[in-house]
């Protein structure tokens, strides 16, 4: 059971959107209780905490439930201000961060289509994914992180999907490093941060999980 004021995170080990929240909490140095959910047998707590979508992640804090990963990240930044800031303070830079974090959700949607579909639909998803990664790479440019030297909102929103790159590449037969080398280099830099290294799944395990899903749900 959680300590009276300590947050609880309902999560699923391989869920990239749950990993966003884990990274954010780790960057802020917030101690929390991690509860692994079985998404094939959802707990009463999850169903009660997120009755609208019944999905992870959910952050439970002071008896309140916060859902949607980017919403949770903003909440974390506001409730635990401290020295580490996930979002910049300038309104325009915050707007840019929110825009690109939302764009990273589109990468997630592409990714789903990429491993779930085959044939022409998969080719279309691959083309879409490459286009989106190139736009993201242009935004990154030669910077260390998306906002410059400081690891932040956009990095946290996007980095969990990098452990799915191997899966995307294997399913659709292409190389992300060839297409967007700066993104791959950025991902390696992020992995040097403890918060990221401890939160992301190993690419091989992600691929195993996807193969399991394909078999179980009959994706070709």
């Amino acid at each position, binding site marked *: 059971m959680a300590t009276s004021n300590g947050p609880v995170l309902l999560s699923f080990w391989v869920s990239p959107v749950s990993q966003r929240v884990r990274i954010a909490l780790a960057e802020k140095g917030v101690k929390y209780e991690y509860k692994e959910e079985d998404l094939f047998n959802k707990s009463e707590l999850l169903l009660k905490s997120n009755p609208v979508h019944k999905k992870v992640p959910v952050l439970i804090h002071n008896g*309140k439930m*916060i*859902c949607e990963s*980017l919403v*949770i990240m903003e909440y974390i930044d506001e409730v635990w201000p401290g020295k580490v800031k996930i979002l910049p303070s300038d309104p325009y830079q915050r*707007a840019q961060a929110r825009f690109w974090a939302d764009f990273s959700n589109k990468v997630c949607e592409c990714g789903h289509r990429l491993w779930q579909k085959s044939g022409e639909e998969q080719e279309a998803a691959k083309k879409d994914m490459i286009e989106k990664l190139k736009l993201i790479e242009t935004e990154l440019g030669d910077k260390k992180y998306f906002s410059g030297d400081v690891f932040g909102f956009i990095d946290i929103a996007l980095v969990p999907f990098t452990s799915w790159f191997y899966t995307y590449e294997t399913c659709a037969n292409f190389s992300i490093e060839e297409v967007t080398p700066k993104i791959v280099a950025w991902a390696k830099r992020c992995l040097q941060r403890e918060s990221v290294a401890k939160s992301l799944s190993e690419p091989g395990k992600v691929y195993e999980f996807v193969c399991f899903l394909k078999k179980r749900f009959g994706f070709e």
Partner: protein
Amino acid sequence: MAEGELKLLGLWYSPFVLRVRMMLEQKGLSYEYLEQDLSNKRELLLKHNPIYKKVPVLIHGDRVICESLVILEYIDENWSGTGPCVLPADPYERAVSRFWAVYIDDKLLTSIIGILKAVTEEEKAENIVDIHAALEMLEESFKKCSAGKSFFGGDYIGFLDVTLGSYLVGIRAAERISESKLLDETMVPLLVDWENRFLAADCAKKTLPSVERVEEQARMIRGTRWKVASAN
């Protein structure tokens, strides 16, 4: 606070544009409105929103902000001392507002377009069920967010009010076209009461187009772009 002229690239019937216009009005901020022709995208739109090539785009001096909810938050933060607050002050209430805004955009636009594009009665009925379910969720959300006051934002129109409010005219136009009841006072009485208050507010009165005009536009799009046979 950044200085500079405000310009908004928009489309007169887009809920995403309407919500930004209502919020600018609510905050008492003047801006130049530039209506865009999306079938013939002009240089300004393509230059300022190369990623999505969509409206709204807020140009503030040399700053460009895209995506309606991002724009609303920018307005909140950049003009925090001007006019009523856009988002609540409490972090949890802010999270709740943000959650429901995402939900509204996820559910309502798809269902409204689904109803308008439906070729069979079954398709239409499915989308009507979806929109009813979403509005019932929002009825519950209104109870909690308003805490007995007039708007989602409390005493004043805020983030969630303009987000949902931007769909009202489209919903009523879709009702006329599909000959169905979507925002039904027997199902969602609090929302219908809220709708009346919202539409009476200055920011809505000065911004929202008429249901008749939106209905005409929707019928035209159905006929020409979507090629739905106009049996009704």
